[in-house]
């Protein structure tokens, strides 16, 4: 996959805060928004809904973006807020445990590949879930959203140096988990 060039749209809209093309913006950022939401949320439907809500919010809130913030930082700041709202809603209304599982149509590959993918995803997810919330969110912004250290710093309200130090520590923790066998 081609590396996401966040600065392309930031340069396209200009530093003066001119509104970029919304269609091109969503076409480029929507996969990344979904990837970030999916990495932070457990189920696919909720991630899809939050992605759509983020896109809808961008249509109206893009004009309120401050010029010193990049487009990517602004977009994923909105996405982070939406995900936080979902987490708060789940905390207030916990899901009920049912005996029968809903039928889900699996459109993925064969059972063996799906098992391997699920195994890999579950393994990584289990590793990430063992990290603190701040470190996990930071790695999601850097890996899933594809933000740079500076953009992640804008989203998290940190400095770029603090972000780099925090991500270094998070990676060291992950490596320690993998070396010790982790949860696998």
């Amino acid at each position, binding site marked *: *996959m081609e*590396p*996401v060039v966040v600065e392309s749209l930031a340069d396209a809209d200009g530093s003066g805060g001119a509104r970029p093309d*919304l*269609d091109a913006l*969503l*076409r480029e950022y*929507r*996969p990344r928004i*979904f*990837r970030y939401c*999916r*990495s932070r949320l457990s189920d*696919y439907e909720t991630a*899809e809904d939050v992605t759509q809500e983020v*896109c809808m919010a961008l*249509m109206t809130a893009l004009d309120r973006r401050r010029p010193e913030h990049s487009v990517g930082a602004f977009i994923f700041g909105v996405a982070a807020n939406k995900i936080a709202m979902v987490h708060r809603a789940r905390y207030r209304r916990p899901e009920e445990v049912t005996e029968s599982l809903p039928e889900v149509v699996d459109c*993925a590959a064969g059972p063996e590949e799906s098992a391997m*993918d699920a195994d*890999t*995803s579950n*393994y*990584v*997810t289990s*590793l990430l879930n063992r990290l603190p919330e701040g470190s996990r969110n930071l*790695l999601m912004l*850097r*890996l*899933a959203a*594809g933000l*740079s*250290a500076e953009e992640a710093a804008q989203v998290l309200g940190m400095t770029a140096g603090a972000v*780099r*130090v925090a*991500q*270094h*520590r998070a*990676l*060291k923790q*992950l*490596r320690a988990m*993998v070396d010790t066998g982790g949860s696998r």
Partner: protein
Amino acid sequence: MTDFDIEPDLAEIGAADTWLNRVAARHAPRGDQLAVSLTNWLDNLDREFRPAESTTPVSIRRSGPSSRRAAAVAAALTLPIVFGVGAAAAAPGTALHRVLFGGQPPAVHRVPQPPTPPALGSHPSLGQSAATPQTGTARTAPSATSVVSGQHQNGVPGASIATRSGQAGVDHPPISGPPSLSTDESTADPSATSSSDTPEPTATEDKTTSPPGAGNTESTPPPQPTLVSSDSAEASDHQTDTSLSGNGAAQEVTTESLNEAPS
């Protein structure tokens, strides 16, 4: 003291930043298990993504509501006008009503009053219609003339003209004398144009025995009781006397009075 409490080296921090950038760009170094796992995890996330049909905002507003709106406005303006015109046409007395239905007054149906009993009638067979004074407003005809022709048995011509003015509320006493033309002042007037009022026999319905010179009623004997035909009596109700009532005095000679004439 743990490893995290130690201030990390700047080189390690930079290396970690580079490593994250490469993993995010799917350029994970081979042999690094963590990098491969993260790359596969990101690929799984990408496979779950379903691209939208189109990200272009589409207006869901229907096109072409202007025609329906215009039709609604036209109907809202036309219907009150049509109803107003209809209501104005239905109301009598309006100009539109006269234009559409003409200047004809509305037809009024009146119930005719029952005929009053004859005041002087004692002979029911002689036509009560001729003897009945028509007073009041029941009859629309302003005046009626009863022309009664007398057919005498002795052949003496005698024409009796019974005039009756239908003036409302005026009752005339019956003429007890012999009915003759002399009693009628208007008949002496040669200017009377009504042929039925002329003393000539031709003015009457009696066309059989009327010798010339029979107009002088003073020398003629009293006529016989006049046989009044019901037809003439009835027909006389529909005749209008315009010449004999010119002096304003209406005379009414009824059949009753003729019957009481001296024989």
